């Protein structure tokens, strides 16, 4: 029996918009074919279901998708196997509690959950906060060079960023992996790879520019 089946509490009707995603009520068979192919929209819909109706089935489905990934990610970051379960649990608990703050126009579900895990990890292992940001429309100093149109484009872009990240040249990918998996600031990455600081900076810039181009090409 799958974890979703275990978690099912028989509350979802056949016609519920999520029944396709998390299987129909009363059945012990969960369509695991969906497992590896959940789209960004489906993942976002699961988070919305948690935000709107505290839907536990949606949470279980989301857990099934993300918990194994969060665990692998944590292990890559050097979190001990003893602690990584706690990190995964705490992260998913925050997903449940903060679901209202998920904003699909700001980024993908994976982006949002990555930031929750990042902040949790810093809190647990570094005993520091990682202050969050959110564009404050009420502040009177909004940078005027980007308008609402850019926001729409930015949203369309994001679904393709994952693909674009995977096609980055090795030299750029290496820096991204060192930063995100090894938790190293750019200065330390330069020392590690024995390359000048300026090279790290330019590779970050190139990666950003390339992501932008790769994403644009596919629009």
């Amino acid at each position, binding site marked *: 029996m799958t*974890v979703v089946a275990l*978690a099912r509490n028989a509350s979802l009707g056949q016609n519920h918009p999520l029944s396709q995603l998390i299987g129909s009520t009363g059945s012990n068979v969960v369509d695991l074919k969906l497992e590896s192919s959940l789209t960004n929209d489906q993942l976002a819909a699961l988070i919305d279901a948690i935000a709107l109706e505290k839907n*536990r089935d949606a*949470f*279980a489905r989301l*857990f*099934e998708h*993300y918990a194994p*990934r969060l*665990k*692998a*990610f944590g292990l890559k970051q050097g979190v001990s196997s003893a602690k*990584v379960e706690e990190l*995964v*649990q705490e992260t998913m*608990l925050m997903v*449940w509690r903060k679901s209202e703050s998920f904003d699909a126009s*700001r*980024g*993908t*579900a994976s*982006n*949002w*959950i*990555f930031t929750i*895990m*990042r*902040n949790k*990890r810093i809190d647990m292992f570094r005993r520091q*906060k*990682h*202050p*969050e*940001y*959110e564009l*404050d429309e009420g502040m*009177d*100093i*909004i*940078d*005027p*060079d*980007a308008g609402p149109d850019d926001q729409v484009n*930015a949203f369309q872009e*994001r679904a393709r*960023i*994952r693909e674009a*990240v*995977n096609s980055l040249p090795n030299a750029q990918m290496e820096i*991204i992996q060192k*930063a*995100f998996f090894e*938790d*190293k*600031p*750019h200065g330390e990455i330069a020392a590690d790879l024995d390359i000048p600081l300026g090279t*790290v*900076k330019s590779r*970050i810039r190139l990666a*950003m520019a390339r992501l932008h181009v790769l994403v644009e090409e596919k629009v």
Partner: protein
Amino acid sequence: MITHHPEIELLFDYASGALPEPMALSIACHASTCRHCCDQLHKLEEMGGALLEDAAEGGVKASELEAVLTRLDDVEIKSESLPSSTFDEATSKTIPKPLRFYLPGNLKDLKWRHIGRKVSQYNFDIDVAGYKVSLMRFKAGTPMPIHTHKGNEATLVLAGGYSDQGRHFERGDFDAKDPSHTHQPIVDEGEDCIALVVIDAPVILAGPFSRFLNPFIKL
């Protein structure tokens, strides 16, 4: 209008989680008033989302989901949000949201330490070794003292403005300086300048080898 932004590598370090809390705070404050950097950060964090989505799956036991499910209804103990209504208008107009969590009261009620007649300073209680985070207030129309830095200095202008070596900084602008800078900024007329200043002071060793070690120590 914001014309001075943090370098892309600082945004990159924020996104990966490699920045210490004081610097992450400064970046979060800038981003909450700058649409451009907000968007850059979303994109950089999307790199983390892509890496998470692609993380090889670690085995997760059904009991782990059950453990989280039983905790979903636990009441969250600490509240992470602080209503802005607890601050007066002058304070909430000046202090970006991420910084409000650290502020014990209104600007006028803070324990300002006076440095001469024209400068006052409020030190935040952020306990991260090697860092000092403060609000600085400079009287309108006066030159600041000529100074150099022992470490790196990141200044975020929150009110008023100043000119420094031919460049002008105003509300929302981010100004990073390393120890090679000797400067004497001149505060604009008309309004006091308030800035969030983060300094990372290098460790100074007093032992017999300090002369040899110091050049290699970097925080």
